[in-house]
């Protein structure tokens, strides 16, 4: 019995049509960079999907073995370019754990503030791209308008708009500029109203609801089986957020909620991201209130030599758990470095989520998972 008949119902074997194989990507408007999907189609119906990876492979893990710990700093934020700060954070957390040092308190506050700002702009792109995949063009421009404000703040602090290279082992590169606090406070007072604006345009739209409710459902057990993390897992009802569970940095000091979904469909994933943006605003507000004075960097030698050993540390990025596993033999360079990217797990769910749906649902589901190929093809 062929797949087509299973999907279309029994009988009518004379209506059996040929499968069409469609290569979606690596150059396609809605594959978020260079994801290639090989679709087997029966008309509009997707029979099976196979993601093909590797078009953005840059040898990140191997290159780490020929670079000193500080040199690799400049590379790692290019991995997941929308949340580069979390890549750096995860890396310095691993190296700090390996060396047994802790960054000064003020540096941790700065990391939290910049990190949450970065989470907001990453969710901006996630929502904008998701809506673009659904065919709504205006939300994309609205979120990019608001992203500019955050980019101005990040540029003020780090001198860069995307590839920050701001973290250092044992702190951050330099202190916050004086005008940062006023700018940041202005942004977080204005921003919640803008989130309401997105919700007015998107969440109450019947077409949006009809496209996303019940679409691409991830069950909690599947989320665990596939290693899904971040908003995708929380939308499925998995109450897991490293910021709260592990409580790294100064996160235990802050009061914030972890938004959860019930159904694990596209709508819940979208809603989780919207709520996380609100929570990020709360965290930034508390961090700005409680930030203390002091040094922002430990006095470490320019050439770091961590002791031999191995360590894995992860942070909660906008896409889920991003971890860095470092094996050191006591030399100037990591002996082996392994990166764990959440998007890789999310992509492995695509075949399961999309089989039996339409092409239009495929792009909706792919958009709702917030895929970013930079982290997948390491």
């Amino acid at each position, binding site marked *: 019995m062929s797949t087509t008949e299973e999907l279309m119902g029994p009988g009518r074997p004379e209506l059996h049509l040929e499968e069409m194989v469609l290569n979606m990507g690596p150059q396609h408007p809605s594959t978020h960079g260079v994801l290639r999907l090989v679709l*087997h189609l029966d008309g509009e119906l997707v029979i*099976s999907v196979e993601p093909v990876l590797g078009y953005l492979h840059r040898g990140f893990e191997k290159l780490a073995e020929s670079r000193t710990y500080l040199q690799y700093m400049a590379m790692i934020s290019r991995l997941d370019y929308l949340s580069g700060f979390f890549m750096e954070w995860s890396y310095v957390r691993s190296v700090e754990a390996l060396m047994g040092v802790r960054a000064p308190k003020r540096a941790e506050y700065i990391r939290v503030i910049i990190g949450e700002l970065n989470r907001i702009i990453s969710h901006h792109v996630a929502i904008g791209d998701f809506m673009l995949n659904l*065919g*709504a063009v205006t939300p994309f421009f609205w979120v990019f308008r608001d992203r500019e404000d955050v980019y101005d703040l990040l540029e003020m602090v780090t001198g860069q708009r995307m590839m920050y290279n701001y973290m250092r082992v044992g702190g951050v590169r330099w202190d916050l500029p004086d005008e940062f606090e006023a700018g940041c406070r202005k942004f977080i007072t204005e921003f919640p109203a803008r989130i309401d604006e997105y919700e007015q345009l998107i969440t109450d739209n019947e077409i949006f609801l*009809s496209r996303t409710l019940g*679409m691409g459902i991830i069950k909690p057990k599947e989320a665990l089986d596939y290693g899904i993390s971040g908003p995708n897992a929380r939308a499925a009802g998995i109450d897991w957020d490293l910021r709260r569970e592990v409580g790294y940095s100064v996160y235990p000091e802050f009061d914030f909620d972890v938004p959860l979904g019930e159904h694990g469909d596209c709508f819940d994933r979208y809603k989780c991201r919207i709520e996380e943006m609100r929570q990020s605003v709360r965290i930034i507000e508390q961090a700005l209130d409680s930030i203390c004075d002091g040094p922002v960097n430990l006095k470490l030698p320019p050439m770091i030599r961590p002791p031999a050993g191995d360590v894995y540390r992860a942070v909660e990025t906008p896409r889920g758990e991003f971890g860095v596993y470092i094996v050191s033999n006591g030399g100037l360079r990591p002996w082996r470095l392994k990166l764990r990217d959440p998007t890789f797990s999310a992509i492995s769910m695509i*075949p399961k989520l999309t089989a039996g749906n339409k092409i239009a649902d495929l792009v909706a589901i792919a958009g709702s998972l917030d895929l970013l190929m930079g982290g997948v093809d390491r």
Partner: protein
Amino acid sequence: MSSIIDFLTNFIPGFILALMVIAASAIVFPFLMRRLWGFICDRLGPNRVGPEGLFQPFADGLKLFIKEDVTPAQAHRWLFLLAPAVALVTPMLTQVVIPFSPDYTIADLNIGLIYVVAVGSFSVLGILIAGWASNNKYSLVGGLRAAAQMISYEIPLLLTIIIVALLTGSLSLNSVVGAQGSVWFAAVQPLGFIIYIIAGVAELNRTPFDLPEAESELVSGYNTEYGGMRFAFFAALIEWGNVTVWAMAGSTLFLGGWRGPFVDSAGWLAIKVVAMALMIIWFFATFPRLQIDQLMAFAWKVLIPLSLANLAATGLFIIIWPDNFLLPTAIVSWSCIALFIIFFPSIIRRVLLNKRLKMLAERRMTTIIHGTGKGGITS
């Protein structure tokens, strides 16, 4: 001999007028759309070429004009070249029966309404030919979507146009305008007008029904393989030409055509056409895209029964009160709209939430299906 001269004196000015209307719409509307959409997005839109960016369409046109005319090697050459010309037939020919002003119609056919519908169905041909002849899978899917969608939405469109014929008692568009002396049909039949707008937007493949050229799914749909001037034909002349004739027909049927306050002239028709085109731009900036089976379900389960009921009710009122049927029609139609506004959101929410629960329960089934697919690029 005199009939040939008669034909030529009618044909040549009419042809030039139709061409100029389409050319003007291809220049004005893309510009308006980009600037207005820009304002809706809180940005400026193109404002560099000329004052306020007014010459942007000319710059774009020039750029597309001087590009190389590429025909893909695997395409069906003649059909590929023919498709834009076929698609241009609809916007050109529909204008023949439109009353431009109180004393000018290119040809006042006594079956004008039937003619509009008949010529309108032609537009799907050009798109289908383009999709098939490109020999591209995205184009093919786009063309097939266009065929399914445009044929489905023609039915409610036709049923609504019949209502206008009933209200007028004639099939000539001039008498339709003539019958709207006291009140526009949009006020008598708001339900019909809304169905006309929805079905028309679907006919035109505009957002939220822009599935044939869904850029996030099908790259550019049926016109993916077209470039240069042929792309300009599809993207500007045909798209916006179709919008213009749809708005012209809509203004004539429901908004009183050239009728207006103070003076009856072609200017009022132009204003109404621009207003209806602006509505399309507004939809574009606001809505996501429907999915293909939701689109078909909406046509067959909502619009067609609704327009059939509307037609039956209007016909009934005309039989019962042959002299003043406008008032009862208007009352029923407006109350339908009121009921719709009051109850539709809660009904659709309930339907969607039920669908969500059903899909949650069915999720296990799709799990089984996965894995039986042939899959695998190596196999």
